[in-house]
């Protein structure tokens, strides 16, 4: 792992991830509001390019029979192929299962995106 500059911050637009190749791995740089996230472009389910999926707010409900609502603070990345959901901050599945996506540390310095990959 080492920090490397991958793209300009302004190049990453909502709904339009930047895909970069680092060694033999593809990493998706994804925007959710003001925040950027770096994700290994590989879904643990079926190997789909998950960075091409959708970023959505988390849908939650307190209990059965209560109305569902959204938590806009928590970003969820949904895979483009089978729509599995992963927490974009932690990489964990929203379902109680083990598979998770790989999240890389990311920082922005002087308009440039750096990831530790």
């Amino acid at each position, binding site marked *: 792992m080492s920090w490397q500059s991958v793209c300009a911050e302004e190049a990453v637009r909502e709904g339009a991830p930047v895909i970069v190749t680092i060694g033999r791995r593809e990493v998706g740089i994804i925007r959710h509001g003001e925040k950027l996230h770096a994700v290994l472009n590989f879904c643990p389910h079926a190997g789909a390019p998950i960075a091409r999926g959708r970023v959505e707010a988390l849908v*939650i409900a307190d*209990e*059965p029979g209560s109305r569902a609502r959204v938590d806009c603070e928590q970003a969820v990345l949904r*895979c483009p192929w089978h729509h599995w959901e992963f927490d974009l901050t932690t990489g964990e599945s929203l379902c109680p299962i083990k598979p998770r996506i790989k999240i890389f540390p990311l920082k922005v310095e002087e308009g440039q995106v750096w990831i530790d990959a």
Partner: protein
Amino acid sequence: MQPLIDCDVHQPNPSPDQWLQYLAEPYRSEFARHGLRSISSGIRCEDGGNRWDLKEERNGLTLNDPGFYSQQLLDAYGHRFALLSGNNSPIAGIPDPDYVAAICSALNDFYVEQWLPQDERFLLAIKIPLQDPQLAVREIERFAGAKQVAAVSFFATANRIAFGERYYWPIYEACQRHNLPLHMHPSTTATIANAAMTPAGQAATYLESHVCMPQFYMAQVASMVLNGVFAKFERLKVMLVEGGVCWLPHLLWRMDAEFKGLRHEAPYLKRMPSEYVREHVRLTTQPIEEPAKTEHLLQMFEMIHADEILMYASDFPHWDFDEPTKLPKALGETTLRRILRDNAAEFLNLPALQSAEPALV
């Protein structure tokens, strides 16, 4: 002979002279004049539904006598308990909730007074009018805590609203509060009231409708799990009777797989769908599937954790009755004991049987 628990035994409908005193007016007069209301799909149940060899009198008793059941089933096979589930045809699919509630009450009163005292091994699944959940709850309250009342009967193939819907939740709340499991049983095939008896449409014959019975259970389980019934009612217990067992792995795998991508449509589920089934749902064995190779059945049993979720049922005296020996011996002594006795003892709150008793094979 080993003690076992039989989760599905069909005592007959009472004869009019036995029953009229229990039926409230105005339905008593109606019944005396016209008999029971009925609804028919146009399919004839296999020759009345009973084993042909039980038509004759035995030891001075007939199928209308509780003693016949004690002798020909309980004594013959070593039953410790038999759950009497009666017959759904007088109530399943009948549209008038007040009428159905009166019929349920009369049937329940009759069996509690006339059958249960005849043999302490008899347990009863009471009938409730699914056509009106409030009346259903009232009937549950009437019998909650009654000796030998062990379950609440659901006619599972003649409902017009799927069992996961909130319509039924007052019933589930009452069952949970009184620790009474649900006994889901197909309604008599000849009286299925749905517009479509299978997802494909109307079944043409008894053969076709009987083969397709598991499809009802697949839909009901999916409805209950995915609408959050078991997440809401954490102590609710459901037994699925007479619908086979080998369909279950497919449903569990499919629910889990789909949930991973569509969780947002059931965000109140905190566990995987299959986990709710394993904790809350039990299946009875009869009519057990009959693959050409027994090893295939054993593989299916392993997939569904049969040692936890299967419970023996004979379906006596119906034509497709299964003896306890129908279960493969290759399951092993421990699993057989759990299927034939221990799982039902736990499920029906019969703790006295959970302690060690002789092996069952």
